[in-house]
């Protein structure tokens, strides 16, 4: 199982330092709630698409967004576009199909869902998981939390692999004529194997010096060139949402 969505690249957004990138992602997501004009919806929706296209290309962008399309369709189908009492935009005979208010609320939800998803996916596509954790450390994520996060990233693929091994070996032990694998025994085996690892892992952490006093050598990440400019860009782009409203 692949836990990393990271795609190697040297684009402008790849070179952006992880700290301003995290800040920009969060600010953009937060400000997308304040937007209420059609121009604003368009920026919220299309800006991440544009950046994603520039940094990882059309194929990967499509792969990410194609997962969202069913959601968009469902929202379109289930939203009362014909909001009663609104200003009619499209009418068919005497039925009002689309009203101003209805359209507005649909576009608001779709742009927000698309924009926030896009911004987050963009972050995961252009930064290695390890670097995101290092970046979060700069925002005062406690050391132990960052350590846990790094370990989670090791155990997810490991346990995923272990599960397929367990499933395989269960299937080797089946009687003639039976196929598949027994689910409850398999997940029990996975849970037991995982839990067995807890004391071993705790000991491994300590044997590697976790908990020693006087830690040094945990220097912050080096600052790249144009670091402050990156922060400025990271702030200005999301803040522009306020201007378009």
């Amino acid at each position: 199982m692949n836990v990393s969505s990271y795609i190697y690249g040297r684009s402008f957004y790849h070179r952006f330092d992880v700290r301003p990138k995290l800040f920009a992602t969060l600010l953009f997501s937060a400000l997308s709630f304040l937007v209420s004009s059609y121009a604003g919806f368009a920026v919220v929706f299309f800006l991440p698409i544009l950046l994603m296209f520039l940094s990882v290309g059309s194929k990967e962008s499509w792969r990410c967004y194609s997962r969202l399309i069913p959601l968009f369709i469902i929202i379109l189908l289930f939203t009362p576009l014909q909001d009663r009492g609104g200003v009619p935009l499209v009418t068919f005979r005497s039925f009002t199909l689309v009203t101003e208010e209805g359209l507005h609320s649909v576009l608001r939800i779709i742009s927000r869902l698309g924009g926030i998803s896009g911004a987050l996916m963009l972050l995961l596509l252009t930064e290695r998981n390890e670097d995101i954790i290092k970046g979060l450390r700069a925002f005062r994520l406690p050391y132990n939390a960052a350590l846990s996060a790094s370990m989670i990233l090791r155990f997810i693929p490991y346990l995923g692999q272990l599960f397929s091994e367990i499933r395989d070996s269960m299937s080797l032990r089946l009687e003639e004529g039976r196929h598949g694998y027994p689910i409850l025994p398999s997940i029990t085996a996975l849970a037991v194997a995982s839990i067995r690892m807890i004391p071993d892992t705790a000991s491994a952490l300590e044997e590697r010096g976790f908990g020693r006093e006087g830690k040094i050598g945990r220097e912050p990440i080096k600052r790249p060139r144009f670091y402050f400019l990156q922060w400025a860009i990271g702030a200005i782009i999301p803040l522009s949402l306020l201007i378009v409203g």
Partner: protein
Amino acid sequence: MAEKNRTALRISLIAIMTAVVAVFTLVVRIPSPIGGYISLCDAAVSFVAYAFGPVSGLIAGGLGAAFADLIGGYPQWAVISFIVHGLEAFLMGLIVKKGSSSIPMRILAAFIAVVIVSGGYLLLTTFFGLTVFSEAVLEVPANIAQSAVGAVIGLLLYSGVRKAYRPLDSLRW
């Protein structure tokens, strides 16, 4: 285990159980009788709550579901999943205290899980404005089925693991 510093044990427990929840959510899929697949997310979450109590449940259950969203390509749901499944595990862990878990208590815990998961997603997705109410209502039956099945499988899993791995209960915080 010695009275000494247990931080390393806590970190390992959280990291590994979070990974278990994420793997159950992402990898283990059971074909559902009404079509589609049931993910075992809730089974893992309730297992963590039964085995390790409310606090570990809150963190590992919530984080595991959130990591599964982040890795599975739906990062926009991560925060909501964290809240819903964290709360689910926390309340289940509170209700089913170690040793004193009678059958009515287990049923109550399963009921709470169903209410939290189906209600939680309904309220939070619409609250955050990431979908519309009528669409969110549609998801409710699937969530009810998944969390109810999950609570039962979680319990079976807990008793199975306890039989095979005797030191289980010594690992609680």
